């Protein structure tokens, strides 16, 4: 296994290159994170990484779905000049 020694501990190689951050949270939320780590048999850091990934992906998925609905309903031929030139033409003139 590709591993890196840090002090007296040995971590999988990739962890050695992850930035370390300090996160503040209330005791009750930390207890829930720790309970989740216990349940999954993993570390507090791994749980928080998983939550962050899931939250970002959920946000992207929600956006993509909503965009598709809007575009399907409202996209149409508009004619005229291309959008970049139209944006410029409609800006305030000095």
């Amino acid at each position: 296994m590709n591993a890196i020694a840090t002090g007296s501990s040995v971590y999988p190689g990739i962890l050695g290159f992850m930035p370390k951050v300090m996160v503040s949270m209330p005791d009750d939320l930390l207890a829930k994170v720790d309970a989740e780590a216990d349940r999954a048999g993993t570390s507090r850091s791994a749980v928080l990484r998983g939550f962050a990934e899931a939250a970002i992906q959920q946000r992207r998925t929600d956006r993509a779905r909503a965009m598709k609905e809007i575009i399907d309903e409202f996209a149409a031929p508009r004619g005229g000049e291309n959008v970049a030139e139209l944006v410029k033409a409609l800006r305030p003139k000095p």
Partner: protein
Amino acid sequence: MNDTLLLDASAILAALKTDEPQHEAAVGLLTDEALTLSTLELARYEVVNVAVCGWRKPELVTASLGVLERIANDGGILAPSDVHLTRAAELAALHGISVYDAAYAAVTGRRLVSCDERDLVSKGLAVLPADARSN
């Protein structure tokens, strides 16, 4: 790879105009679950302005604001700071473009996507929607 894109108003509007050359590519970006999308506060005005004053379709205002709201909830709608506008002014002077266009290009850390070939893409300040995923 940084998978956060900054869309200017033209890239957003292209998704709502099916006879735009970059329409399909713009739709592809807006509906891509692997990307995080952001834009500038300026885009709110420019997108709604085109819907109302350019296309004469006030009924598109709600849809346009819906698109922008989804971007706000994804990568965010960035408000300009003095530092950002100073950088935009420098870019505008350097490239002979408007501060409006330069404002998008002045954002750092996010790839700018635009349909503006004349002032942004041709100067290497942005990429077309069709090229946004290439390195």
